[in-house]
């Protein structure tokens, strides 16, 4: 078939607006829509980021900005020898390495569970989702009570099973794992909901066909369900990763980075150095390095995912 020749408006030109003018008008409108968001982004994201980069080369003390001096790489040199920075980096890494896979798997398992067509399943969906809509600060405060070594709920329950008591947040070897456990519990419901949406997209006839071919439940999971939600899986892994590196509220509320810096994370250190110690210069250097680390991980992740989707 011949392509339909494009109609030009030479024969019937619109009386007032030429194509060029219309294009310009559209452009103006589109900038009008994008503008406010761009300005907000610039003022609250890009500008602070540029300033942070600049401050990281100065000795800016929060209360005496007029005495700010350029100190070159000094803050970065100090970072290299700072034990607490290394420890914070390690703590953050530990949190990410455990939370990302475990939380994703837990969420997937929950999604599979609540995807059953059983009466009253909506209650369970709601129950698993409830912690997500609760403020993290409140969740953290509640879990501080649950983790109380002497009269907390956690030890009472473990006592019935015959283990414990544990020190939880007051022990340097247990505090981080306590926070990890709580964070997975709190966040898994969110990923569960996204998984659930993905699961319901998979057409039923695939499962029916598999049943006819004599596939068991495990084979169906591996060959139909997982490939069916692969894009969602990737999305969730990235989102969880980014959220996990930003761990702050839990240690801020529950442990203040302690005991013995065992729950101090990079973002907590940025806050502590910048506000408590008022050392904005050094704090900015930590933030910049943190940015670089997240950037590198994101680039690697993108590369890895591009290859796998091809």
């Amino acid at each position, binding site marked *: 078939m011949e392509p339909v020749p494009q109609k030009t408006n030479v024969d019937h030109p619109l009386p007032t607006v030429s194509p060029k003018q219309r294009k310009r008008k559209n*452009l103006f409108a589109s*900038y009008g829509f994008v*503008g406010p968001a*761009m*300005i907000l982004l*610039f*003022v609250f994201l890009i500008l602070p980021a540029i300033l942070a980069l600049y401050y990281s080369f100065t*000795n800016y*003390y*929060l*209360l*005496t*900005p007029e005495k700010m001096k350029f100190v070159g790489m000094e803050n970065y040199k100090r970072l290299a020898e700072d034990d607490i920075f290394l420890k914070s980096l390690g703590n953050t890494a530990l949190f990410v390495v455990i939370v990302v896979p475990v939380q994703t798997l837990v969420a997937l398992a929950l999604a599979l569970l609540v995807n059953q067509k059983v009466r009253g399943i909506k209650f369970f969906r709601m129950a698993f989702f409830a912690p997500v809509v609760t403020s993290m600060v409140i969740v953290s405060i509640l879990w501080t009570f649950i983790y*109380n*070594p*002497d*009269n907390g709920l956690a030890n009472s329950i473990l006592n019935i099973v015959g283990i414990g008591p544990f*020190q939880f947040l*007051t022990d*340097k070897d247990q505090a981080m794992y306590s926070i990890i456990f709580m964070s997975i519990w709190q966040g898994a419901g969110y990923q569960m909901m996204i998984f659930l949406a993905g699961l319901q997209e998979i057409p039923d006839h695939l499962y029916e066909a598999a049943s006819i071919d004599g596939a068991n439940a495990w084979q169906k999971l591996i060959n139909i369900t997982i490939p069916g939600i692969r894009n969602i899986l990737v999305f969730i892994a990235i989102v969880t990763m980014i959220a996990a590196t930003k761990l702050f509220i839990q240690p*801020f*509320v529950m*442990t*203040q*980075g*302690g*005991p*013995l*810096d065992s729950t101090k994370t990079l973002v907590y250190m940025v806050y*502590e150095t910048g*506000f*408590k*110690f*008022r*050392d904005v210069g050094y704090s900015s250097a930590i933030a910049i390095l943190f940015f670089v680390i997240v950037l590198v991980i994101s680039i690697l992740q993108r590369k890895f995912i591009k290859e796998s989707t091809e």
Partner: protein
Amino acid sequence: MKKGLLLLFCLVLALSMSACSNDNQGASGTEKNGEVQLKMWAHQGQPKEVDFYKKRIEEFNKAHKGKIHVKLDIIPSGAGHAYEDKINAAATSNGLPDVLDMDGPFVGNYAATGILAPIDDYVEKKDKQDFAKSIIQQGTYDSKLYALGAMESSIVVFYNKKLLKEAGINAPESLDKAWTWDQFMDASKKLTKNNVRGLTMHMDNGVGEWLTYMGSVFVWSNGGLLLNKDRTKADGYVNGPKSIEAMNYVKDLFKSKVVSVSNGPTDFEEGKAAMMLGGVWLIPGFEEYKNLDWGMTYFPYSKKKTSPSGSWAFGVSSQSKQPKEAAEVVKWMSNKDSVVEISKITGMPPARESAFKELPEYDKLPKKIIKDQVLNTAKARPATPAYPVLTAKFAEAFQAAALGQDVKKELDKAAKDTDRELERFKK
């Protein structure tokens, strides 16, 4: 061209936005009908304390009608550093009020960074002498006076009379018989049995100011210091042999299990701990526990009798255009009437010697203990610009001691970090 226009558009909007945020929150010091208008911030303490601030400022406005009018804002202090964060933010954006309220040990930092203006010129020498020495100590930086408080504070050893009687222990009732560290350790050990600990130290308060407030007393009592006399050096002081010895004593208390890092906030009140190193502000709360028969005794000592000190105090911000009038507010909030009244409301000891005369309950036991400490053994935390770092690092070292870590290593870290911070303020 288009890009240039867009950029210009962005800039104009950004500028107008920042102009909007520049509200009139800060020190006004303006005059209206010949009346000087002042702004004041106070932290949100106990509800009764907040009511007191409001009431006292109302009275001030009445007494100075036509001359000075103060508008008081109560700022939430919350957990951690919310109130301080607010001051920091305001200081950098020229938004400080004329009069502000701050925790005693931070006066040094605020004075050194130029947030506070000295008030020596406005306070009479005779009036100054009436304040407890420790209150003048905490308000003084570089031999200039910056802040005056209405309240003092102290930590005493609270004890459960019933449990002490059962163990056959008599707590000292006069300062010259105060417990030494060894006696205190013995008593704690004797009192630790069954499910009852001999002692609780409120380690559940976290690694905050509490640990420095309480912990520094151990160092001082043992003859150690956090900083040298000029407050220019931490190395050799906070990690000096006497400080290490003191922290090892704390470590031993935890090691011998007379006290636990996981003691709950009300273990003493509930009878799960026989003694408590606790702030005197806890006393009003004891009324809720009908079964508790409590007494108090002095902070135990090693070589020198020492007790903690320091509380919220008022100062004049350097951004105020009316420092003289602002100083009037500071003086009003710390005059004898204010001191007596806030002391009655909060149960905190008064900051003035003369106020003790109006409060007869401080002449007999158990409150006599507090008066003895405030007037004889109280020592303020060092007024230094490096205090925010010093207190955080010292508190971490104290917690490390409680958790059985190497005390010297932790104190060395505290010394190193504090010295680096002090370096910043050297000219």
